[in-house]
């Protein structure tokens, strides 16, 4: 939308927005310099520079072990949520059976239900079933619940913009339905699939409340250990952890964002 008011006349607006952007962006980045501090204080700017807090991170079983747990859980969640979520989105897109809107609403509903309620519910189910509390499988199942809406919403939008008759053509030429889907439909939806997988991975990697309720000890995720450390003893190792988390959770979406906008521009 273009505007009829000159840019000079709304300079005050741009200044205001600049301040808000500063408030949004700067605090997230302050952990980076603090993580290279040479002292134990969390002051900014740091008194001197060193990499000792990264050495502390990589030298402690508590951090390395939990990073490994987080990565494995996030990977498992990514696979489980994308496979089941794509299957469901495909079915919801292709046919108009009864219950269709009810199923769709159910799959998206974890987005609207407060995380603490989902966490308490999962804790209850695991406590009843037995064998899932304090396990990687339990964490993966729990995280899949909160990752599901992201996969379903992303894939539904992808299917919406895709011409399904191409799959029909492939099937009419003799491909089985599964083969037609895997070789014709899915490759053309690669950006939606990549986005869905990335979101599922990140949702799991970031998730805290479910992890707090259903896991502890050796199956603690990185976010859970970070939370506990933040509450008890704060030191710059946390800044190193935060910087690593910052890189892990913002660089992949950034790359995807740039790649998709670029390819959209080429298509246009």
């Amino acid at each position, binding site marked *: 939308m273009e*505007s009829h008011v000159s840019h000079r006349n709304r300079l005050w607006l741009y200044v205001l927005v600049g301040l808000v952007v500063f408030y949004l962006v700067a605090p*997230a980045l302050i952990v980076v310099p603090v993580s290279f501090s040479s002292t134990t204080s969390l002051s900014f700017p740091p008194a001197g520079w060193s990499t000792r807090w990264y050495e502390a991170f990589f030298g402690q079983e508590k951090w390395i072990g939990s990073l490994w747990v987080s990565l494995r859980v996030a990977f498992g969640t990514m696979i489980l949520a994308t496979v089941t979520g794509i299957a469901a989105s495909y079915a919801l897109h292709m046919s108009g059976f009864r219950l269709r809107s009810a199923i769709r609403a159910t799959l998206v509903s974890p987005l609207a239900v407060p995380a603490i*309620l989902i966490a308490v*519910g999962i804790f209850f*189910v695991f406590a009843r079933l037995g064998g899932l509390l304090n396990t990687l499988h339990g964490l993966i*199942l729990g995280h899949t619940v909160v990752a599901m809406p992201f996969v379903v919403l992303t894939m539904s939008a992808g299917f919406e913009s895709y011409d399904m008759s191409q799959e029909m053509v492939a099937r009419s030429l003799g491909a089985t339905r599964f083969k037609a889907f895997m070789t014709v439909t899915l490759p053309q939806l690669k950006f939606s699939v990549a986005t869905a997988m990335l979101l599922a991975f990140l949702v799991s990697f970031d998730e805290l409340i479910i992890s707090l309720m259903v896991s502890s000890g050796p199956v603690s995720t990185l976010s859970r250990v970070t*939370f506990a450390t933040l509450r008890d003893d*704060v030191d710059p190792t946390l800044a190193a952890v935060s910087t690593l988390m910052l890189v892990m*959770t913002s660089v992949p979406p950034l790359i995807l964002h740039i790649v998709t906008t670029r390819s959209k521009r080429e298509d246009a």
Partner: protein
Amino acid sequence: MQPAAILPPVTEADLAANQRALDREARAEDRLMFRLTVPALAIVAILMVVPIGWLLSMSFIGGDGQLGFENYALFFSEPAYVQMFVNTFAIAFAVTALCLILGYPVAYVLAILPPRWSGLLMLAVLVPFWTSGLVRTFSWLIILQRNGLVNKALVATGLVERPIPLVHNMTGTIIGMVHIMVPFLILPLYASMKTIDGNLMRAAASVGSTPTHAFLRVFLPLSMPGLVAGTIMVFVMCLGFYITPALLGGGRVKMIAQRIEESISLYPTWGPAAALAVLLLVVTALCLAASMVLVRRLSTDR
């Protein structure tokens, strides 16, 4: 001359048989498609829908195992609960109001800037949005601490004599929560502003409207659906917040989510926690329903 081949006349019975075959195929297709949704549905239903239903029933069972409203009566009888409710709603209102003040101008500028600049600004909104809430909460702990940046600046400029407590209290909680929630307001608001036709503002100007007047009478009403949807979403998400109040509140600012977690370990039965959970769920559902009704009404008014 004879026709090359004469097809037998199509009877009613043939048509009916054909229809039946088609119906059968459609039903088979529906069944197959339904089966494809089962794995996803099972995960969400077993781990979320069923336990929430169970929480609902548990909330009506008292400590003695009898049916009743004992757990809900706790809301009024225990002073800690009352304080917690006041905290939860006060924080949610304050955060929502601040998000509105900070978010509306950003969404507006996003909508009017040329694509190249708006893309950059969008990135500035998205990067914190992607950053882990835990990382950002820790950042605020560094910035707002006793000898942190903000306090140093305040003392240096002479605004305050000695450092003021900005963290481990309500102030810190609100600052940290606003930071997390602003993008949730900007994104839907921007989506709705982008659909507004810029010619409407020019038309208003051409018939003598001042920019302020045109904004208030034309742009603001047209941006209402996104504004209402975003505002209510922010409010609802604030009600269930856990991480930020737990860390930046320093144990002094209790909101409903923390109380639910504590209740599970505090009481021998699930009842009190379940009652709080049901309350949170009902308030959330009511807000979201109100949002849907309002947005629909505002959109059809045009």
